[in-house]
């Protein structure tokens, strides 16, 4: 499962964080009630499931790039008595098990081991591991299901989402409660019953089975023709440093259907869920605090758009062209910069809808500055392989420290005064330095390693 010790230590690190973090619970309970803390942890694992669950978007081409050498497996349906759905099912199960042992189990196990020392009953820690697993699976199965629907029919997806929104709205109006309180893992963590547990498992199984049945493998040998969109796009981006690279990236995102799919499943959906959960913490924040902590969160999630543009190719396809790795990194970051229109509009929309129009500009500046800073850290640490290298313990540790410090500083600053959030523009300096260092660092790495 792990190619090297650095990657094998990743779950150990998660275990360590959970174990040591457990000792802080009595201290944190002074500020945050334990119910809120439990909610936050469940939200985190729901988010993890949501962000890894977009399996429906994985066409064979993306699987080829994502799984590298194992493309032999993805295409083995052509030569072996195996259906493409069966192979795909195995990939989904593999990924689910992989992320469970990478994130969910180490965290739960760390808390279980710490429980005797912090006076928490063992049974409740076992329940927590169970409900965290369910949270993760709910996120994964829901997005898996929705992403498969999206690939099949966008109209049906919009209808389903509209119905979900309508039902959520009705629930809020009729009960006055937040819909997150009926989220099954939360219900189970508050009061475990076997009936609720079986219903939860039933919902998950149903979503999973329907998604597998509806999954549509890419048609092979399609000769659909496309007019030349590259030239006009390149003209459009002629003012940028590397117009052909940016034009190619945009076409990759658009024609693979990843642009809209990733925007919905890796950006909008997680942030909508986060908004609902964060809104429960409103009493803990200053009056405008929710908007700014949401802007910070959006910035961090927006930075993962860098993985959208790097997932299509590594350096290999460019190795026969006069392109340096540093040029490619700059090209990917340029495309990333264009994509930041999405989080900017999103933060602005949230500011308007939440009645905080006065703070729209500082919130957008904060979110986008955080996003650019986070991506510069990612580029410096991971180059063109963020999806892979972020699971190196050393890399993740440095990433968390670099991001964590900045998040704490600017969240505190914006809580002190919303217009102080504008000071986030100062992040442009470390961002620029880190990108410069990323270019030097990854140019010195043997390109044959990509």
């Amino acid at each position, binding site marked *: 499962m792990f190619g090297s010790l650095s990657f094998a230590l990743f779950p150990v690190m998660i275990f360590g964080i959970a174990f040591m973090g457990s000792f802080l619970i009595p201290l944190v309970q002074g500020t945050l009630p334990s119910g809120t803390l439990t909610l936050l942890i469940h939200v985190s694992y729901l988010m993890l499931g949501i962000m890894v669950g977009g399996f429906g978007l994985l066409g064979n*081409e993306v699987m080829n790039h994502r799984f590298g050498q194992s493309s032999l497996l993805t295409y083995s349906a052509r030569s072996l008595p195996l259906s493409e759905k069966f192979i795909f099912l195995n990939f989904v199960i593999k990924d689910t098990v992989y992320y469970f042992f990478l994130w969910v189990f180490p965290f739960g196990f760390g808390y279980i081991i710490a429980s005797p020392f912090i006076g928490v009953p063992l049974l409740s820690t076992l329940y927590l591991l169970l409900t965290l697993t369910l949270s993760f699976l709910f996120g994964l199965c829901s997005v898996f299901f929705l992403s498969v629907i999206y690939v099949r029919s966008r109209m049906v997806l919009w209808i389903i989402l509209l119905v979900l929104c309508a039902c959520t709205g009705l629930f809020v109006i009729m009960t006055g409660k937040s819909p997150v309180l009926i989220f099954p893992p939360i219900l189970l963590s508050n009061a475990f019953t076997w009936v609720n547990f079986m219903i939860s498992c039933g919902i998950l199984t149903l979503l999973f089975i329907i998604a597998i049945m509806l999954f549509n493998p890419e048609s092979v*040998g*399609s*000769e*659909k*023709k*496309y*007019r*030349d*969109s*590259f*030239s006009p796009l*390149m003209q459009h981006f002629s003012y940028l440093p590397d*117009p*052909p690279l940016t*034009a*190619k990236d945009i*076409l*990759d995102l658009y*024609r*693979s259907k990843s642009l809209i799919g990733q925007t919905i499943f890796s950006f909008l959906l997680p942030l909508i869920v986060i908004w609902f959960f964060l809104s429960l913490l409103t009493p803990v924040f200053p009056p405008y605090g929710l908007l700014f902590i949401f802007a910070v969160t959006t910035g961090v999630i927006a930075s993962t758009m860098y993985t959208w543009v790097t997932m*299509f*190719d590594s350096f*290999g*396809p460019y*190795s*026969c*062209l*006069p*392109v*340096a790795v540093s040029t490619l990194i700059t090209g990917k970051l340029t495309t990333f910069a264009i994509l930041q229109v999405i989080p900017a509009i999103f933060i602005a929309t949230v500011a308007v809808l939440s009645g905080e129009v006065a703070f729209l500009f500082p919130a957008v500046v904060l979110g986008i500055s955080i996003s650019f800073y986070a991506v510069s850290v990612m580029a410096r640490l991971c180059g063109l392989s963020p999806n892979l290298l972020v699971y190196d313990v050393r890399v993740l540790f440095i990433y968390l420290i670099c991001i964590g410090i900045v998040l704490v500083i600017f969240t505190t600053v914006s809580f002190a005064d919303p217009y102080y959030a504008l000071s986030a523009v100062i992040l442009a300096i470390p961002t620029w330095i880190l990108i410069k260092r990323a270019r030097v660092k990854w140019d010195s790495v*043997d*390109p*044959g390693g990509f």
Partner: protein
Amino acid sequence: MRAVIEVKDLSKTYGDVKAVDQVNLQVEEGALFGLLGPNGSGKTTMIKMLTGQTRPTSGLVTVLGIDVIRDPVMVREQVGIIPEQETPPSFLTALEYLKFVAAVRKIPDIKAKSDWWFDFLDFADKKNVLCKDLSRGTRQKLMFTQAFIHEPALALIDEPLINFDPITQNLVKDYLAEYVRKGRTIFISTHILEVAEEICSGFAILHTGKLLHTGSVAELIRRGEHLPDFFLSLVRKVSNV
């Protein structure tokens, strides 16, 4: 004749495996040079080192007078490369990919050039199809095109005829022969010895990373030998030692 490729004590090690071991080689301008060897002999690694796609563990390599280790991008600017495995970007059409290459290489008049190549290799009907939907043979035609569209002084090709049908193989062989007649150089790596004998002027034999022999095809023919027989006897002799 000046040397367009000079390799001195070149080695590449992957962990415990020595993929290329102390190779010394020179290729002169105007040659159609073949690097021959069985599977796993280090041919692809050699080509990757010559084009800066991977760094040598030790040794020196210059291509067209440029130190490859110091300036690999400059080398790739001057040469054309057809790698063994890499394929064009999945979500560009064949025509878009050539325009992409033209933009990166700053090639003028790409429309006329790409039209010529689409007709020459007979894949004009595929120019608006996404690269991921092209057959292997058509992708190889496209990769061949991108390597020669800027008319480089030196082209490095890993397995030049792979995936081509017999008609295209003939076209390509004639094109390569004509290309060197114009004073340019071609360096191919292949394990198909009959092709090497047919089109190469010079050759080198690589086995388990070591250079066993360099020579000219004409010299072999003068001695009444055939390249495939010569290769097999040499490799067997080394393997039995």
